[in-house]
């Protein structure tokens, strides 16, 4: 390449530059530049033609002035002239000027393009290189349009020089980046692939970059590059460090090329051909082996280059995820790096391990490093490294080590850097939930979390605790106790007050028996925190108080006093004031049964993807959360070559509740908040029930949740190939729904089935929500309702699918909805069975549950006077018509609860009918298509003996019996 000889140096330029440098002030500099510009203008304008040298000199000056930040609006023509000169130096300056000051003047562009074209066509390699560099530097669309056809030809032509090929490949790469749509694919692509075999390593390096980019665009076309890349790689890896001469960098043979080849291989799944595969494995092994060898040089460049290749190899191994042996070795190698002196290496090792942890082969191997990682968390000086350590801990966590990891993270949290606290909090919350074997542990952990890092605990976290506590009745008592104890600390975080307020409001009664946490003490404890809290928390506490009114009638007066105080009733905040006023009125006028209904315990929340997880994902961006299953899934789809996007974000399928449902019911219980709100749109946050103005959430039936053991059934029962084998038993489930219409019908580890139903006369409609609790898709999902033969004649069921045909695939975390229309033809005994089949993780899952369609659902309540009642009672005096049952109470005998249950059963509760006020009487009509059956009932509790006597009289014997069976189970 002709170098700029000394005599070629431009003295005028040097003088000008030194003049500028010597300027004392900005003004002086501007003056000097103006003078020079005027001089150049007069020179360019002059009639005398300038020789190449002075043209070059002036163009250089212009370039210099432009780079100083002044506008240059002339000289382009001269530069284009230089472009067509035959001297290298002049051409070079011309190209330099053009690539720095591109001008969109169409005339000029044509001239420039013409000049470039000429140079490309010339056989002079330096000129060709200059032209290619200019195209790449400008990289504009116009350039791309003009030259994308030519460059591939130069690239693959047999007689092109190596250096030109190199430039051409890089130029094409650049054009592909700026305007990918313009780069044509064609027969040259296959020949480009063969450049991987080129003897010149520079060409190979450039070509590898190009191929990698193109292969990402259309992998099929470059498929054969895999075997070539493998063979090239193996040649490099096995070569001695001296073989490659110029391309050996500090004893590492061609590190850049190796890295690029490994990257290229990451565009493809593991090669299928055995030989190629073997060779690749060999290469990777060699790379791993080399890492073990003692370093050939002490220089940092040597280890850097070596490690770069190594890390790229490891990411290829992770990408392939097929060789357990390699994965484990990679993991061990990274394990060594975890204790390396170099912070960068430790960082990289932690980062790579995060992805390794998600592979099933190496998960165990990664787990062996847990101590080191925990140590890193504690001792690492760089916060970004600590952050990676947290990520890795999160990724390697599973059921076996969850307790330890969560404990460590909690420990660390106390001293953690502020920037990563929130993330750690989220992670702890997720891990605690995900791997909770024992929910008391979960509650402890989260309360601890709030205590340690209250400010960083986002809303979602405490929402989640409450969701879980409400849905798991086995921890309710415990959590009430724990929260109560936690609240006794002199200073506790506001989030804790919120959780405490909510939980005590719901389950304070469970610990009220203990004199240390009597109702009054609970209330005083909460109220002592009241004034230190922000408005939303106070609002929540007010709701708690009104719930206390219901739970503990004995402190009603105290609470009313508090509500009545000026600081509440005349609070400046509208929300607080309104709540205080409304709650006060409610507590004053409402009868106990209305209070009991309105302030009934929260119904269980529908299961859905943890909102915390959503939050974490949002924070990190999808795909960055090293969730095992997800990454795994993504990888699988990659490997199958499918391009179908796998939805990671699981709130994709959302159903809206038909808003008319409550009106349809017409049951008159006004502000019913649908307790089973199907996954509300997008955000899937817990509905903050307290922020709603209706004082509390009332489900239709007054059943207290804890009265029924929740229908959790271990997965072992469910996973069964034999249909009909596991009808989830049965009466227990159905009983739960006798007195209420909405709730969770069934739940196991895989899915949750929620119900919402409404009945009117002999017709009913049931909304069934199937929620996928896992993060994996259910495939070939199908449902069927089976009625036993005997039942068929009595009840007609029409199954409607809202989502056409219930989508055979249910995405992880998603919910699908079905509507079931029911018509009661005549009275019936058995309940229909819902059969669900789907494929999860390869195994066919089959489960059956009884649908809670019971006869009493078709009740219409009938109000009547005492006289009427006894008149009818006497009319139904045939022995078959009466059914009587005496049974022992299974639950505490609470008048209010009983009343609510009777109303929930469907009959009208008749007050003041029975001469004995402690007795309950009810009346209603059962509507079927064929007949209507009047029904009267009487329930006589005996509190001393803890017994009930239930008497039912209906016009049909079967009906009486069935109703008696159903109702007697409720008390």
């Amino acid at each position, binding site marked *: 390449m002709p170098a700029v000889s000394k005599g070629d140096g431009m003295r005028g330029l040097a003088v000008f530059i030194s003049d500028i440098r010597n300027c004392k002030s900005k003004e002086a500099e501007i003056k000097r530049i*103006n003078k020079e510009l005027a001089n150049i203008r007069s020179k360019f304008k002059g009639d005398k033609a300038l020789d190449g040298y002075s043209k070059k000199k002036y163009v250089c000056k212009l370039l210099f002035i432009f780079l100083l930040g002044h506008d240059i609006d002339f000289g382009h023509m001269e530069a284009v002239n230089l472009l067509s000169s035959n001297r290298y130096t002049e051409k070079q300056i011309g190209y330099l000027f053009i690539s720095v000051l591109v001008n969109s003047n169409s005339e000029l562009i044509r001239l420039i393009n013409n000049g470039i074209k000429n140079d490309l066509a010339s056989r002079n390699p330096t000129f060709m290189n200059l032209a290619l560099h200019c195209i790449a530097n400008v990289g504009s669309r116009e350039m791309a349009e003009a030259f994308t056809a030519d460059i591939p030809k130069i690239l693959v032509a047999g007689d092109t020089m190596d250096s030109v090929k190199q430039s051409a490949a890089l130029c094409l790469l650049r054009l592909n980046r700026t305007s990918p749509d313009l780069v044509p694919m064609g027969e040259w692509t296959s020949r480009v692939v063969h450049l991987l075999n080129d003897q010149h390593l520079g060409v190979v390096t450039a070509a590898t970059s190009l191929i990698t980019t193109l292969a990402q665009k259309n992998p099929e076309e470059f498929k054969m590059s895999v075997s070539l890349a493998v063979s090239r790689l193996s040649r490099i890896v096995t070569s001695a460090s001296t073989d490659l001469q110029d391309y050996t960098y500090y004893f590492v043979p061609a590190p850049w090329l190796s890295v690029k080849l490994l990257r290229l291989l990451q565009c493809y799944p593991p090669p299928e051909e055995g030989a190629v595969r073997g060779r690749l494995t060999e290469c990777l092994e060699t790379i791993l082996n080399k890492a073990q060898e003692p370093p050939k040089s002490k220089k940092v460049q040597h280890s850097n280059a070596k490690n770069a290749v190594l890390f790229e190899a490891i990411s290829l191994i992770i990408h392939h995820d097929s060789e357990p042996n390699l994965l484990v070795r990679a993991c061990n190698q990274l394990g060594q790096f975890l204790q390396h002196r170099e912070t960068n290496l430790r960082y990289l090792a932690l980062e790579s391990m995060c992805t390794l942890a998600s592979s099933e082969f190496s998960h165990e191997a990664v787990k062996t490093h847990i101590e080191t990682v925990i140590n890193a968390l504690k001792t690492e000086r760089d916060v970004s490294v600590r952050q990676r350590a947290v990520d890795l801990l999160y990724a390697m966590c599973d059921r076996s080590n969850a307790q330890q990891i969560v404990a460590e993270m909690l420990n660390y949290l106390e001293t953690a850097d502020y920037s990563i606290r929130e993330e750690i909090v989220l992670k702890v919350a997720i891990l605690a939930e995900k791997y909770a074997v024992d929910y008391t542990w979960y509650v402890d952990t989260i309360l601890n979390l709030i205590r340690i890092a209250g400010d960083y605990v986002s809303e979602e976290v405490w929402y989640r605790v409450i969701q879980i506590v409400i849905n798991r009745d086995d921890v309710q008592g415990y959590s009430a106790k724990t929260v109560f104890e936690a609240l006794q600390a002199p200073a506790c975080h506001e989030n804790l007050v919120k959780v405490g307020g909510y939980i005590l409001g719901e389950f304070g009664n469970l610990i009220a028996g203990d004199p240390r946490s009597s109702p009054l003490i609970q209330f005083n404890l909460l109220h002592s925190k009241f004034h230190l809290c922000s408005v939303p928390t106070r609002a929540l506490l007010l709701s708690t108080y009104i719930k206390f009114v219901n739970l503990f009638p004995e402190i009603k007066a105290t609470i009313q006093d508090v509500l009545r105080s000026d600081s509440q009733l005349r609070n400046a905040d509208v929300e607080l004031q309104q709540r205080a006023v409304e709650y006060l009125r409610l507590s004053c006028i409402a009868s106990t049964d209305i209070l009991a209904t309105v302030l009934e315990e929260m119904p269980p929340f529908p299961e859905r993807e943890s909102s915390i997880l959503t939050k974490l994902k949002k924070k990190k961006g999808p795909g960055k959360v090293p969730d095992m299953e997800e990454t795994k899934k993504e990888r699988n789809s990659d490997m199958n070559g499918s391009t179908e996007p796998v939805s990671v974000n699981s709130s994709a399928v959302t159903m809206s509740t038909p808003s008319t449902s409550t009106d349809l019911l017409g049951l008159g219980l006004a502000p019913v908040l649908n307790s089973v709100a199907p996954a509300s749109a997008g955000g899937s946050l817990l509905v903050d029930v307290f922020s709603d103005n209706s004082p509390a959430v009332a489900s239709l039936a007054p059943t207290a949740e804890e009265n029924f053991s929740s229908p959790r059934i271990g997965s072992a029962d469910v996973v069964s190939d034999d249909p009909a084998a596991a009808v989830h038993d049965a009466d227990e489930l159905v009983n739960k729904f006798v007195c209420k219409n909405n709730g969770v019908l069934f739940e196991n580890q895989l899915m949750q089935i929620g119900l919402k139903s409404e009945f009117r006369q002999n017709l009913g409609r049931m909304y069934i929500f199937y929620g996928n609790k896992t993060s994996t898709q259910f495939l070939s999902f199908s449902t069927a309702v089976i009625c036993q033969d005997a039942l068929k004649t009595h009840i007609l069921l029409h199954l409607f699918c809202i989502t056409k045909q219930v989508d055979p695939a249910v995405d992880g975390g998603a919910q699908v909805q079905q509507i079931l229309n029911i018509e009661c033809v005549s009275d019936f005994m058995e309940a229909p069975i819902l059969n669900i089949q789907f494929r999860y993780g390869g195994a066919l899952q089959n489960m059956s549950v009884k649908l809670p369609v019971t006869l009493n659902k078709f009740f219409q309540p009938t109000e009547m006077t005492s006289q009427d009642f006894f008149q009818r009672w006497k009319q139904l005096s045939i022995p078959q018509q009466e059914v009587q049952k005496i049974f022992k109470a299974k639950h505490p005998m609470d008048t209010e609860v009983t009343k609510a249950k009777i109303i929930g059963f469907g009959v009208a509760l008749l007050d003041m009918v029975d001469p004995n006020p402690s007795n309950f009487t009810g009346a209603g009509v059962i509507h079927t298509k064929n007949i209507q059956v009047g029904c009267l009932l009487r329930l006589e509790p005996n509190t001393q003996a803890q017994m009930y006597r239930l008497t039912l009289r209906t016009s049909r014997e079967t009906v009486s019996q069935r109703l008696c069976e159903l109702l007697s189970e409720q008390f």
Partner: protein
Amino acid sequence: MIGGLFIYNHKGEVLISRVYRDDIGRNAVDAFRVNVIHARQQVRSPVTNIARTSFFHVKRSNIWLAAVTKQNVNAAMVFEFLYKMCDVMTAYFGKISEENIKNNFVLIYELLDEILDFGYPQNSETGALKTFITQQGIKSQTKEEQSQITSQVTGQIGWRREGIKYRRNELFLDVLESVNLLMSPQGSQVLSAHVSGRVVMKSYLSGMPECKFGMNDKIVIDKQGKGTADETSKSSGKQSIAIDDCTFHQCVRLSKFDSERSISFIPPDGEYELMRYRTTKDIILPFRVIPLVREVGRTKLEVKVVIKSNFKPSLLAQKIEVRIPTPLNTSGVQVICMKGKAKYKASENAIVWKIKRMAGMKESQISAEIELLPTNDKKKWARPPISMNFEVPFAPSGLKVRYLKVFEPKLNYSDHDVIKWVRYIGRSGIYETRC
């Protein structure tokens, strides 16, 4: 109040740094340098706010003076102080230059200690300062002298010491005006014009004289006119001028000015600026500029400029300079002028035409051919205005000194014994004509 004062050279190196308040940290010095002196875009505003700190700067040749404060101060006061500071420095060591500042840094710190106290401006009267801040070696002062200084500095008349004696009582009075103008292209319409003037005095008077200054202020003349005959009011009405606003040296008794509009004062010794004023009405424009620009094709421009002097033929204007801007793509200029010298200055992108002297009621012209280089730029030339510089021996505002009386009751010299000199100088400020 002023938190600190810095003086920089053109490179932004700090020559003098004096901090008066704790809220100004060291980084303030750098902040000003980075954001103002070395700013990418030239900072044109004299007040810059950086991180809630205000910087007020003035520039004297290559030297930057910057006052810094974090408080909400009266900006006019700060600038007044900065100008005063410049005056004081000039009075002590002449031209403000990097060299002089470096040579006199001890003196400057001494001055800064005296004229600013905790950021509050103090006595900045050069005459007074010179009595106790001297450039000579310290000579031990007698107790009397010391007490005299104290009483003077703290007394009512801080600007003049007692016991001054001159053999010849002399007074010099200069009326210095600068006239600003913006004219429309056809030379027919004045778009804006105003005169800002100063009355500068040099007094060498013995004792504690009481002076009274009178000029043709319209209000005063009209008031007198009412009192006396109609005749005088007619003749003086033409002569009087309307002063838009004025400011006085601290020695002028403002109460008297407010009530009687008479300017009476006990003058400081030596040179001082008695008053400043501004007028906008009935301005005598000393020169008319008539430009003629013709574009001949894309590559040529013909310019013809005529200037006419518009004052008494007996008077001579001096140092006349006309600056005709040229387009940015000028590649060559040919100039022909009858009088003076004209030259194309490429470094300033202008043709500069200089005439040494020119009498009143005369006319002169210049014509130039400008060759242009065709460019790809579609931007049109903005045609900046033609500007002019000159000096004339009269006051363009029409101000006349009517009298300057001196009374010294204690010493035995009267108004007649004082020798008085009056001079008028009118200069151009921004004197532009659009073309």
